[in-house]
């Protein structure tokens, strides 16, 4: 009597055996076992019959559609040689030799260090030699000339002669002269001498900057340097003593020699 167990749907645990049985790839022991089960289980018998029907449908489809098709012409480009084993082995050989080259060993490390030392020493030697040659060239001034732009004339620091200081010195000499010559005239001269007014700082700067030698110098050409010089000149002028600022008792009562000579001429 056959079992009719409809609850199970996987060949009662014989799914793989059922497929193998269907395609005839089941071994004898499993085949006997499965056939015995089929004789007892109606569900599995029904299943295997349904599967055989499906299989025949697929085979029909194949025979109707595919079997009548001609095989395609497969054109293999035999001229283009595939990458041969020999080539592959050669490339492997190169790869292995490269890897061996970069593998570490005490001898290789020592050789590498020695090579580095020799290389560095050679490099330093070459640099030193070239540097020595350069200095020698400089000394001999033969081929290697360092061109440095130098001014054609020496920069002459303008000598600042403030008129006030000049006047003081002149006044002292004049006073000596007047003391020696005539004291009475001195009184007269004192009465006649006009007060000397010192020139303004702007005028002094103007007069100081006028010389031709300075105009050609780099300091003058460079507006920055010129500005610095002007500032220095102005500062020194400011610091210089002024006749205007002299005390009352130190008032300039001297007479210039030119004025005296002029007076003598008129007389």
């Amino acid at each position, binding site marked *: 009597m056959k079992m009719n167990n409809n609850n199970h749907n*996987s060949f009662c645990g014989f*799914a*793989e055996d*059922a*497929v*193998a049985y*269907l*395609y005839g*790839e089941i071994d004898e022991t499993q085949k006997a076992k499965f056939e015995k089960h089929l004789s007892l289980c109606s569900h599995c018998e029904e299943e295997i019959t*349904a*599967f055989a*029907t*499906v*299989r025949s*449908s*697929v*085979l*029909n*489809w*194949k025979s*109707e*559609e*595919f079997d*009548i*098709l001609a*095989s*395609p012409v*497969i*054109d*293999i*480009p*035999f001229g*283009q*040689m*595939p*990458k*041969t*084993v*020999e*080539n*592959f082995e050669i490339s492997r050989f190169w790869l292995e030799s490269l890897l061996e080259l970069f593998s570490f060993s005490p001898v290789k490390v020592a050789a590498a260090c020695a090579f580095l030392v020799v290389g560095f020493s050679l490099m330093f030697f070459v640099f030193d030699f070239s540097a020595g040659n350069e200095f020698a060239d400089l000394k001999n001034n033969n081929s290697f000339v360092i061109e440095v732009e130098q001014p054609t004339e020496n920069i002459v620091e303008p000598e600042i002669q403030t008129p006030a200081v000049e006047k003081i010195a002149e006044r002292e000499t004049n006073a000596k002269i007047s003391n020696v010559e005539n004291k009475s005239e001195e009184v007269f001269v004192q009465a006649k001498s006009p007060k000397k007014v010192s020139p303004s700082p702007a005028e002094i700067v103007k007069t100081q900057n006028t010389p031709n030698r300075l105009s050609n110098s780099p300091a003058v050409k460079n507006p920055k340097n010129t500005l610095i010089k002007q500032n220095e000149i102005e500062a020194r002028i400011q610091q210089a003593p002024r006749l205007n600022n002299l005390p009352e008792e130190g008032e300039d009562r001297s007479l210039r020699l030119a004025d005296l000579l002029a007076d003598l001429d008129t007389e």
Partner: protein
Amino acid sequence: MDKDLTDEQLVEIAVSENPEAFGEIVNRWERKIFALCYGMLNREDEAGDAAQETFIAAFRNLANFRGDAKVSSWLHRIAVNQCLTKKRREKTRSETFLDEEKNEEEKFFVAPVNQSPSNSFEKDEKTLAVRQAINSLPMELKQVVLMKEFEEMTFQEISDALELPLSTVKSRLYTALKQLRMKLEKTPLEIV
């Protein structure tokens, strides 16, 4: 070329001595590879292209062939990959859903080129139903069915080709047959 040589020996000769030894491998396997490609792509021209590309790819990579696997398994793996690539390209080519729907309709209603008008209506319908049922299977089930039915490969050969355990191949085939049975039983033809 000596017909008694195994596929593996032919590959060795092709690599080391004579590349034309690969031609014998082509003769041995072209029909089966073409069958697999046809089953997966359902179009003669595309299946032919896929088979051609499979053998060319194999020839160009002969040096990379591992001796531990069978040449047939290797060829099948390449063929499956070629078909999957073609299917993916086809999928990306179809820009809109409407295009895909149209293709499906074409597949369903347009008979193959080789089919003559004299065939009976019932036969056509059965063939179409089976084709549609197989096309609707997932790829991993479909390729097992095609290898078994179209190429008549053994379970062990399928296992080698797909690099799957033997039990997995059998269970996949069981699942595939079960789904095919259900699909074919649902078709109106069966009811009629």
